[in-house]
């Protein structure tokens, strides 16, 4: 048996029975909150501060040198629970990036359907190249189903460049110059 503790309740005093002191206390409290600063934000103009680990809209990012990070391994496409991601792997144009061409691949098309995305962050977790990130965009709107599909251009535009410290291609180049390319 659990021990019960009987709390002694004092009978109400006459003033308490009239409720008036309590009402005055309540009025004081509401006046206090009225004079306080407002806690709401003027939303479209004022935006809340988004923490770093926030899982917003998935985006593709470039490395600090402005190179495409995604190598179209399609791991994110396979892991994506609602099948929101569609990737078409393709070759890198040898004319434009001669040192990367024939070494890695790059996505020809990269579509994320924001009507299907559940913001789980598995794509970010699974990406070996740290190319896809769920960033701080939380408000998505469009006028048609098609406009809700983010294509590659849009994804890079939303993602921008993340300051990571890997410098994969710089290191590869340095290693190649030193003579141990692989």
């Amino acid at each position, binding site marked *: 048996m659990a021990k019960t503790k009987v709390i002694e309740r004092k009978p109400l005093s006459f003033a308490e029975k009239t409720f008036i002191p309590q009402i005055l206390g309540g009025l004081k*409290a*509401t006046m206090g*909150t*009225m004079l*306080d*600063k*407002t*806690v709401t934000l*003027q939303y479209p103009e004022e935006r809340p501060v988004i923490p770093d680990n926030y899982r917003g809209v998935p985006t593709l990012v470039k490395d600090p040198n402005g190179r495409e990070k995604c190598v179209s391994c399609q791991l994110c496409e396979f892991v994506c629970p609602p099948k929101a991601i569609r990737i078409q792997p393709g070759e890198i144009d040898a004319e434009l990036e001669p040192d990367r061409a024939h070494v890695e691949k790059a996505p020809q098309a990269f579509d994320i359907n924001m009507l299907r995305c559940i913001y789980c962050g598995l794509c970010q977790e699974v990406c070996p190249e740290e190319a896809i990130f769920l960033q701080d965009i939380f408000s998505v709107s469009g006028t048609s189903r098609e406009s809700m599909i983010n294509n590659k251009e849009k994804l890079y535009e939303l993602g921008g460049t993340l300051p990571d410290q890997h410098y994969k291609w710089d290191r590869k180049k340095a290693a190649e110059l030193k003579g141990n390319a692989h």
Partner: protein
Amino acid sequence: MDFLAIVLPIGLSLTMISVFMGLCSYSVLAERKVSSWIQGRVGPNRTRLPLLGHLPIIGNLMTGLGLFQPAADGLKFLFKEEITPGHVNRTYFYLAPIIALAPALTTMVVLPFGRYVDAAGQVQPLVLANLEVGMLFILAISSLGVYGIVLAGWSSNSKYPFLGAIRSSAQMISYELAMGLSILPVFIWVAAPGSDYGLNLFGVVQSQQTLWLFMWQPLSALIFLVALFAETNRLPFDMAESETDLVGGFHTEYGCFKFGLFFVAEYAHVIMGSAIFVVLFLGGWNFLPGLADPWSDGLLGTILSVCWFMAKVFAMIFFFIWVRWTLPRFRYDQVMTLGWKLLLPLAIANLVFNTLVIALYDYFNR
């Protein structure tokens, strides 16, 4: 001359109605603003009229205070689709909002809201009709307001409005008694035999030049205030509406402009209630207790007295809103208990006590 005698009262009444309706819409705004401040929100601050809203500085200030919001609210009610449910009793369904609003507007006829000094040097009230039985008139007319609610609830022919109407009629009947009895001592003191005023509201204000009535009749003032909250159907006594348990109560089936009329009627009651409380207990347009009125005899003095009166009324309206967001709603049986078992006996005791005091006073002063 005869022509003027007919046109002038009509003009004055129309002016007063428009000012009063303006006040109603702005007290709706005040309610929205104050409630949002109390809840830590900003409140309506986006509506902006062209031209006026784009003046430098003032335009932004007015928009931020939501001063254009009433226009948007009114237009919304006007342009909404007029829906009449199929199961209602049409005649009374349409009649109810009118009956709810009319008494609230009628009572303002006898409300003195300022004073002027006439050619003979006498202080006269600014009032549409200076009735000798002004208070009686107000009590009689304002209690008609319940018919609007009862008719609305009954003609809506559905359960929640019906419950709301029953509750509110029971509540109004119970609190009317306490209300009437609580101001009797006031008039016994003010309208002593040999005084000029009787049940005239102007007389009550004139008698408060040195001491406001709530200071030496605090119990009357308290009972009247509580009853006033009940009569105006404001929280903590808004049995008729009970948004949470009755889905809006008597006006559940109403929409668009008919709902707007109920809405305006509610705030008209609040304004009238505040004004009557100011007249009866807060000294009307008298400056401060113990201080002589600084209002001059001319036009400026008249305007100042009206402004001072309005300031007090606004303070009371604010108090109404403030209480709304402070106290939770009473349960229905608690409302009845408070009315019948507490306020009514208190009011009677107060009346008997004051009568005894006056009798003793007369006996020893003879």
